[in-house]
């Protein structure tokens, strides 16, 4: 309850410190109990930090002002599925994978598959504006949610409507509020018949720029892939996704990082991130697009193939080379694994972090290059273009840098220098992203990590944000110190 999966907080754990423990933990089992806790906290002016499964990566649930950690995982009664109406009512403490299993038994899916699905809750998805890996087809969580039940900072209960209503969309003002405006207790989500078939492909492009151009053409064609992820040359090569060649030709220092090499070798290679990044530039550069379509019912396989083949024909006109089904199927089989490969790197004294930014197609390549250049002196960096829309795309950068001593040797002094190196990398990356016109976050949220850049994102919109805080939480008790509120 004193941290989530923010990599900076993992450095705390490595140094055996927990700087922000909550004073108490509450486990409400019903909305009524949430109301009781909030009314108590409002009367006593005690902070409340809502907590789901703790998979956030920005420090959004770190109780920096102490108070009550409100663990919502007991709000996990059985979902009410109405497949003919395409809706499911769910309590926010419900684990993501559990929800999909229950939906699957009813022949349904929400289609929200974040890589954290095993260790995240519906409430966490809504609080942070989460995205799943199939967002091109199903949308992000703000596209999937139809209504929410929320306890505001005064302990009043409100329920937004899954029906036409007049005035500003209250649901969209609450989704993404990271626990600062209200505590979401229930949600109605869109659900769909579960796909009967997946059609997967790998498509290779000569350069990442050619891949970006092709991805734009695909997304504007009206076809709706479930998966459309473009890996930059390094990400393509290191994962062995590049078809013929695989990892052949990858210099030793890069392999040490990706293969979770021995501590000393890894630390040696990360001492010179700029050199590593220059090695990457010399690699043969092809870029891989993982493409997937889905179909439902008895015609599902034919439907998925029909759209897939139309997409492959279209991408061929943009220089895309069809690598067959294997790269796509391999991605599908391994799609949650990467998140669990990071422990050896942290133990060795490295940090691994990811930055999720997004912009429109016209600015995308410039954003990609600007962030690579800015991060190169600080960390080893690679990227993939992970969530594509009609008018733009997100970029998911992965940084690997040297943060401090290996596990067991880290102390408070080491932590201080480790945090400084970590923060330098992030400041460079976020400054470059802001300068390139990108949004600071596509789906991780803001938390503690990005909030100093929030005024650059919103400008005078910070006035609107503060007004929302005054309206929803006049006592200032809900997750204080987040979103600069």
């Amino acid at each position, binding site marked *: 309850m004193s941290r989530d999966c923010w990599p900076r907080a993992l450095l705390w754990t490595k140094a055996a410190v927990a700087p922000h423990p909550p004073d108490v933990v509450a486990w409400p089992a019903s909305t009524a109990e949430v109301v009781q806790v909030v009314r108590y906290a409002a009367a006593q002016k005690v902070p409340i930090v809502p907590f789901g499964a703790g998979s956030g990566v920005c420090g959004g649930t770190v109780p920096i002002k102490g108070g009550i950690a409100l663990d919502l995982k007991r709000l996990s009664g059985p979902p009410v599925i109405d497949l003919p109406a395409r809706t499911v009512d769910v309590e926010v403490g419900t684990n993501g994978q559990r929800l999909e299993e229950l939906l699957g038994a009813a022949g349904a899916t929400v289609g929200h598959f974040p890589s954290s699905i095993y260790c995240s809750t519906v409430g966490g998805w809504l609080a942070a504006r989460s995205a799943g890996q199939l967002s091109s087809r199903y949308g992000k969580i703000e596209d999937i949610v139809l209504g929410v039940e929320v306890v505001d900072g005064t302990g009043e209960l*409100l329920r937004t409507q899954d029906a036409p209503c007049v005035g500003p969309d209250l649901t969209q003002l609450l989704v993404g509020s990271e626990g600062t405006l209200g505590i979401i207790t229930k949600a109605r989500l869109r659900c769909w018949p579960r796909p009967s078939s997946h059609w997967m492909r790998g498509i290779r492009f000569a350069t990442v720029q050619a891949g970006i151009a092709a991805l734009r053409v695909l997304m504007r064609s009206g076809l709706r892939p479930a998966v459309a992820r473009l890996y930059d040359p390094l990400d393509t090569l290191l994962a062995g996704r590049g078809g013929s060649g695989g990892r052949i030709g990858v210099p030793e220092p890069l392999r040490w990082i990706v293969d979770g090499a021995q501590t000393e070798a890894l630390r040696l290679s990360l001492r010179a991130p700029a050199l590593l990044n220059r090695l990457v530039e010399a690699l043969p550069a092809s870029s891989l697009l993982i493409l997937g379509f889905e179909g439902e019912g008895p015609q599902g396989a034919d439907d998925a193939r029909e759209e897939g083949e139309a997409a492959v024909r279209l991408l061929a006109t943009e220089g895309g080379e069809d690598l067959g089904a294997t790269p796509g199927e391999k991605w599908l089989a391994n799609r949650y694994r990467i998140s669990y490969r990071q422990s050896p790197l942290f133990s060795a004294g490295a940090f691994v972090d990811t930055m999720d930014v997004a912009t429109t197609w016209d600015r995308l390549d410039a954003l990609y290059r600007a962030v690579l250049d800015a991060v190169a002196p600080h960390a080893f960096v690679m990227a993939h273009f992970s969530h594509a829309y009609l008018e733009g795309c997100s970029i998911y950068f992965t940084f690997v840098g040297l943060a401090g001593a290996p596990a067991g040797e880290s102390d408070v002094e080491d932590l201080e220098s480790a945090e400084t190196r970590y923060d330098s990398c992030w400041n460079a990356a976020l400054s470059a992203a802001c300068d390139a016109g990108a949004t600071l*976050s596509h789906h991780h949220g803001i938390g503690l990590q990005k909030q100093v850049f929030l005024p650059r994102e919103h400008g005078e919109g910070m006035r609107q944000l503060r007004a929302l805080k005054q309206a929803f939480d006049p006592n200032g008790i809900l997750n204080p110190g987040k979103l600069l509120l």
Partner: protein
Amino acid sequence: MRGNGDAPVEPPANGALLELVALDRVASMDSATGIARVEAGCSVAALETAARRAGATLGPLLPSVRAGSVGAWLAGPTRGDRGIPGARRETAALSLAAVLADGHLAESRAAPRSATGPDLDHLALGGAGRLCVIATAWIRLFPAAPPAYAAWHMPDVATGVAAIAQLCRDRLAPARGMVRVREGGVLAAMSWEGPESARIFRDRATRRLGERLAIDAGPEVRAPASARGVEIDARWESLEQLARRADVAEIALYGMHAGGAFAVLSLASLGVEQCAEAARATGATVVAPRRLRAAAPSWAEMGAGAIWTRLVAALGAEEAA
């Protein structure tokens, strides 16, 4: 507020009318990315003309939206929503620059999606200018391409509407639909858009609904909805209920998604006021004519009346009478 194309508005007794007609520029048009930067007073028709010239389009929109200004569209009851492939809706406003009550200009980042707190654009979208005034917007555009059309005979209007609802629930949402009583029966005509997808989805719909009529369904879809119709936002349950009325003459559908649609509803022998009343009785909200729209936001009905009051005060905005 009033922009180009908007009907004359009487200024409130203790206030002023904000004429935005001079804010009418299409500042940029990028059809490759599919975005245009436009001032709020520009008419939707002028924006569509500029988009078409560049090979792009706003896509199908309700007649009242198409007749008014961009500001009225975004601040109005449809919140700029449009249907997108996959039977979903999203707002056409990629980002907004809005003037706050204290005179500051708040401009959001032009990104396809973001996770940087609440979506602040939603203080302006659908807000009817109560909380802030939209000055400029980045608008999302579709590529312009010939639609695929199809039409079927239906035993009655209710069956036609139910068939379209099921297509939407099965992700085959048309871009436009028209269910119309004609001499000798009921016709359901639809169009699908998308350079590569229109025919695929039209043909899948044909497999569901049976062989389509051997007619050019384009004129049937494009024919203006009855001038006596009322424009509504409704769930499919509401639309199916309205379609079962004996006096239903025509239902034109836009912005369809798995849960419902915008519609122009025409009931034979009933005036616009009675049409609106019938629609409201099913849970629909009125989009046009403007005089029949609900006056106040639905926040109080959702338990957020006190929040609305505090929000208005915090923003320094004042409720118009």
